């Protein structure tokens, strides 16, 4: 059963199929698996850089936390809708100005979006939401509270999962994440006492889930130090707010933030050492160039 493993003297084994070689079919040459390579594309990460990038995740978590807190206050009556509306308006104006100031107008010039278009969009939002707020108010009257809470929690979780944190993965869908967040906000807003509350809540949700990440992305790209500072402040604010509602929650949230920003990068760098990717001539070839230029 065992085959002769020694080569016939004077004749070397060749990796060709069209010649009849004097070796048996199951002969294993020294050159077997000589083209095997391991971990060709392994990347080396630096701890600082990974921690910096994890700021995006931290920011989103804090956004969700702040939103839920705001809703809680409004529901408890501790926050008046007019107050919230005023604060949100002021901060949006500030953010709008900052958005253009950060990169000196280059982004606006590149995308070709005029201020008039921005104003139109804002008016459309406001009108629509205000018009529909009575309907929104009565939308979930007949559904039980538990269902609403469960649905909102699910939607916010989905928002966090599908959000575009800058990675190039197939699961990312910024449209879906934004829509889920708005769905959750509508569900929660319909539980508030009056139509005005609902209107203000939905507007606030729009600002914190759509406009705030846009600003942060720009900040991150242009002024990294500022970005780190803003993130830390935002996180502290969220924790403070959460602490007034529930201290256990605050502790848990704080540990979650720490885990994401400090522990996970460490694990990532450690696990890279255990990577074992196999490459060889059997791999499917990758087309490295952009072939759509032939079709344009």
């Amino acid at each position, binding site marked *: 059963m065992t085959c002769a493993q020694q080569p016939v003297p004077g004749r070397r084994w060749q990796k060709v199929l069209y010649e009849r070689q004097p070796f048996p079919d199951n002969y294993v040459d020294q050159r077997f698996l000589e083209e095997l390579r391991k971990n060709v594309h392994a990347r080396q990460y630096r701890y600082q850089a990974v921690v910096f990038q994890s700021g995006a995740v931290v920011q989103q978590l804090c956004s969700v936390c702040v939103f839920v807190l705001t809703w809680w206050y409004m529901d408890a009556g501790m926050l008046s809708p007019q107050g919230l509306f005023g604060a949100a308006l002021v901060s949006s104006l500030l953010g709008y100005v900052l958005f253009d100031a950060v990169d000196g107008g280059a982004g606006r010039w590149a995308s070709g979006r005029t201020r008039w278009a921005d104003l139109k969009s804002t008016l*459309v939002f406001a009108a*629509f939401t205000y018009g529909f707020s009575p309907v929104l108010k009565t939308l979930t009257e*007949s559904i039980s509270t538990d269902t609403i809470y469960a649905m909102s929690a699910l939607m916010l979780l989905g928002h966090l999962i599908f959000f575009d944190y800058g990675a190039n993965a197939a699961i990312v869908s910024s449209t*879906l994440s934004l829509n889920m967040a708005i769905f959750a906000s509508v569900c929660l807003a319909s539980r508030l006492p009056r139509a005005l509350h609902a209107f203000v809540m939905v507007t606030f949700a729009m600002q914190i889930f759509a406009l705030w990440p846009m600003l942060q992305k720009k900040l991150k790209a242009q002024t990294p130090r500022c970005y780190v500072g803003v993130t830390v402040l935002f996180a502290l604010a969220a924790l403070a707010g959460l602490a007034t509602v529930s201290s256990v929650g605050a502790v848990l949230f704080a540990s979650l933030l720490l885990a994401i920003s400090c522990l996970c990068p460490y694990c990532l760098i450690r696990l890279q050492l255990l990577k074992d990717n196999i490459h060889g001539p059997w791999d499917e070839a990758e087309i490295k160039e952009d072939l759509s230029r032939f079709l344009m």
Partner: protein
Amino acid sequence: MPDLGWSDGLCLSVYHHQRPFQDWEKGFTGKLQASLEFPSNSADHQEPPECAYGCWLSLMSLLKWLGLVFLNMPSSPLWWLWSAQIFLVFTHHPQVEFLCLLAGVCPCRVTAMVLKVFFPSCCSSADSGILIGRWISEQNSVVILAVVHFPFIPVQVKQYLGEVQRVTKVSVSVLGSWSNSKQEKEESLSEFLEDLGTIFCHEPWIQISKEGDSKFWSCSILQKHSKNPQEEEIILVYYDQRKVMLSHLHPPLDTAGQRAEDASKLSAIFGTVARSQVLFMTDRYNEGPIKLTHWQSDGVEASIIVELLKQASVPACMLLTFLLSLLSGICRSRVLKFWPLSFLWSKLSTCEQLGHRLQHLQVISSSKKAQNQNQLMRKANIFVSLLIDVVLGILLMSWLYRKNRIGHLADTLVPVADHVAEELQDLLQWLMGAPAGLKMNRALDQVLGRFFLYHIHLWISYIHLLSPFIEMILWYVGLSACLGLTVALCILSDIIALLTFHIYCFYVYGARLYCLKIYGLSSLWRLFRGKKWNVLRQRVDSCSYDLDQLFIGTLLFTILLFLLPTTALYYLVFTLLRLLVVIVQGLIHLLVDLIDSLPLYSLILRLCRSYRLAAGVKFRVLEQQDGKPLRLLMQINPLSYRGVVQTYRLPTYSCYPRDSWASLCKKLFLGELIYPWKHKGDKQN
């Protein structure tokens, strides 16, 4: 028994194998054919491995033989001898041959030649003479049509046969001689008969002779010019000439395989007898030079009433055609084609039915003679169906108009309509509350509920407006029942449709609202996921939306989603009501269709004169004597009732829903309007 075949068969039959061994790859087909051609006398003949088919065939032939055994069980020991002989035949000959033998049709690959002689039973007691008929060489069979008695002049006989051939297009010729000697055998007669063979020179020349009253005749064949002198076996098949002539053979529905071949052979025999009618017109009271014996030789049947009717029908048809053309001219006039009227006519089923009956009348009254059996039957069916319809209609009318039933009907109509409307109002009130414990959106609920309630209010007032005139309308409408029961039923169906018009309206409103909602939801759901429907490529593509589009879209999606249960419930309730009405109307239409399409004349014919509609023949084995040819009696197998209905049913104007249950459910789910009863002329939706 072959081992491979059975076990393969067993193995496969466990797993529902249906068409054994139909396609064979190259290299094997030849072998299979060779083994079938192989008449084996040796016991160690190797069966081809896969002959499960052959085994099934043998099983069937065994059953058929057993059936024959139990149906015809005379007490004569000779008969048992014969059956034993047949049994031995079965175990030695290939099975296919045995079936053909039983069917009286010549098999293609049998070693001995068999000649079949079809002899009319009416000629069994005829005097001696020569036999005339048709020789069908491809089936090796002879159909004897009549006996020409002595004395005759051969030239005249040939002339007469030539004339008959020209008229009927059947190749009639002199086939042989028939000798019926009441006393002992006469030697000289037999020589004379052989000499006749030289005069009339037909290959093969058949000689049948009967002695006294014996049942067993002796037949022989003279072949002068045959190359291979073979012992020909003769089978005598007796047939009832009159029945075969009048009968119409229906071909089997599956046009493949052995059965179709047998059927075409049978139709040749039936066709020969049917087309030779002119031969049977000369009876023995004719003064011509030729004296024939056939079924009508005792006198041609005729009936005065039938003749009178035939004479009277021509002017009646012409009158009817004239009236009908007048009527159809009126119907087609432009006056009736204006839009509201034409729309109304198309919706009322009464008009469809009347048009259908008009068409039938036109068919009956046309002066063209029916070309073939099918057309004749169709005309007869239509006539009988119309007649029965009108009779039933008149009966109904007489029952309705007695004892003022119309008045009672009219009196109960308005309260019934009121009652229905009240029930609907209660239903809506229930929906507007919390139906079955479901929680609805109160605002939308109220809106929809009030909208429908207003409609019902309108409807009630409309009915009350009409109430004084109802009796009169009904009285006049009831008169139209004299046109037929079907028309009355159609009118009933239309009245139901009119009375439940409000349900129809509600259904349409509910369905449209629901449909809009469903389409809106599906489109917004795609937006929710960031996708879009690509109309060009007919698929879903991803798309980057603007921020405001996303926002408004999601908002609308949420609203529609939460309002869905309410709309869905209203839609469900009204759809169920509508389906109920549709089912009732459908049942009435089914009844109308049944009356329209049932071929009553054919069914009565099948009941009374079953030999007129033949599906095939069956053979009864008569007493047998050694040395004498095999005697069979051919009896006509009438078509089954189901076959009669299938072959002769009249076409109707409505086509039943082509939608399968699955597509119907899909339409209901999506909120598309359903029209279950479409008419043939309507455009497809």
